[in-house]
């Protein structure tokens, strides 16, 4: 982990293919994102946006080129430790009605890789969980089973879980997909504030660019597995 203060993500001529697939899901990707930036990645279905996020996290390994997260090559085993400094909000988050973990427990599970053994959560972290939950307007549903919550509420629980980890890099895959108009703006504003207050980095993949486009420092447009255009806004 050499450049924790500057570089968040670096992709150098990255190609990724799924086993058995005839063609790469993403190809020839070159991207550098610094800490303190909010990046919006957009594009049509099948453009390779989710593959790009999973490659950045090291969940998918490039067949060509190199991906670095906080200065560490994602091929190295050390990437497991680096992921503890990151958060991820997946696209497929819906849990079935019989899932009995409470919203609070789901958020606390986000700390499982960070906390010491035995899973003891200090009081200040509990207060922080409550603060984030209130900001996202889910403070009153924390003790309800996650499976009984609406899609929008579940999505906010995952976003709260990501923020509670106090990450250096936060990846959000379609974080507005189940949210109403007001909630979209609250989430976008919360992410923006978090990035700038903590000198962190957020990578937001979204079809719906409206809530976040004015807050992003860099907008990346993807199509057919490649980056088609990049628009830098302000000092990136």
């Amino acid at each position: 982990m050499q450049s924790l203060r500057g570089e968040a993500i670096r992709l150098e001529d990255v190609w990724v293919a799924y086993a058995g697939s005839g063609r790469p899901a993403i190809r020839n990707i070159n991207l550098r994102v610094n800490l303190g930036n909010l990046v919006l990645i957009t594009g049509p279905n099948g453009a390779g946006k989710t593959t790009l996020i999973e490659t950045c996290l090291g969940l998918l390994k490039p067949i060509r080129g190199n991906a670095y997260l906080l200065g560490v090559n994602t091929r190295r085993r050390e990437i497991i430790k680096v992921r503890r400094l990151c958060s991820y909000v997946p696209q497929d988050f819906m849990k079935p009605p019989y899932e009995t973990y409470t919203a609070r427990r789901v958020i606390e599970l986000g700390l499982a890789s960070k906390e010491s053994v035995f899973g003891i959560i200090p009081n200040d972290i509990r207060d922080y969980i409550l603060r984030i939950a209130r900001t996202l307007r889910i403070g009153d549903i924390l003790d309800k089973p996650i499976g009984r919550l609406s899609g929008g509420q579940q999505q906010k629980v995952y976003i709260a879980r990501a923020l509670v980890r106090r990450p250096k890099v936060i990846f959000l895959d379609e974080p507005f997909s189940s949210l109403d108009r007001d909630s979209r703006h609250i989430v976008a504003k919360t992410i923006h504030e978090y990035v700038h207050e903590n000198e962190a980095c957020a990578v937001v993949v979204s079809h719906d660019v409206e809530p976040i486009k004015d807050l992003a420092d860099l907008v990346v447009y993807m199509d057919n597995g490649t980056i088609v255009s990049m628009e830098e806004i302000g000092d990136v």
Partner: protein
Amino acid sequence: MFEVALLASILSGGLCGILGYYVQRFNIVTLSFSVAHAALAGAALALVLGLDVTYLALVFASSFALVIGIISTRVSTLERELISMGFFSLFNAIALLMIYMSTTYVLSTASISVVLWGSLLAITKPKVITLLGLVVIFSFYIFMFRSQIDAILFDRKLAEAEGIDVDFHILITLLFVGTAIAFTLRLTGGFLVFTLLYNPVASTMQLIRSAQRQQLMSPILGAISAMSGLVFSYILDWPVGATIALISSIILISSYIARIVINFRLVRIASREDSS
């Protein structure tokens, strides 16, 4: 002697029940299936060499669990399944070959029953104490890593993305599976030991959907299957392993029927409410 066997059946049934739950949720059923047959091969080899069946089964199962656990982190899921099934065939071949090569004397002793169908006589006090130790160590592991294990059970991919070492927990689970099987095969025999890993969790999943309740129910059903199988085998003078497998299979079929009945009643109540 019977009390010792009864305690062993509760311990091994409960342990296999909870391990089976993790095996299913971690998606390593085929891996643990081949680990179970590694134990069988080790036990059969012990017959020929005149060594302790449990300890050679333990060496085989644990070594193989370690090797396949490490291999599985470096290959795709499909490759992992294929490799596991390849080893499953190999271990079965070794086991049968070893039984074939055993002397007539060995084939006439109680040792062979340990490999084939389990035996009440094979369960000794030291083995039960070791099994109890294993249950304590496993409980401590679960207690220590409760949150990480819960995070994997809740969403494996998210847990991995958040920096939980999923491969480490899978490897540890496989090692526990190997050790538990090595001790349990004295009770059930090598060919039926997998029943206690698979049937309790399969029955539980028919009846309960909540992950937390499944974790409680699976070891309870495992312990009930093993204990009642032991009692019936004693009363009827049947082979203990086969009787345990029979009881746990009856529980599995009953759970499946119960689920169909519950679903049918739910549909009927909903239809009545709609029509009224």
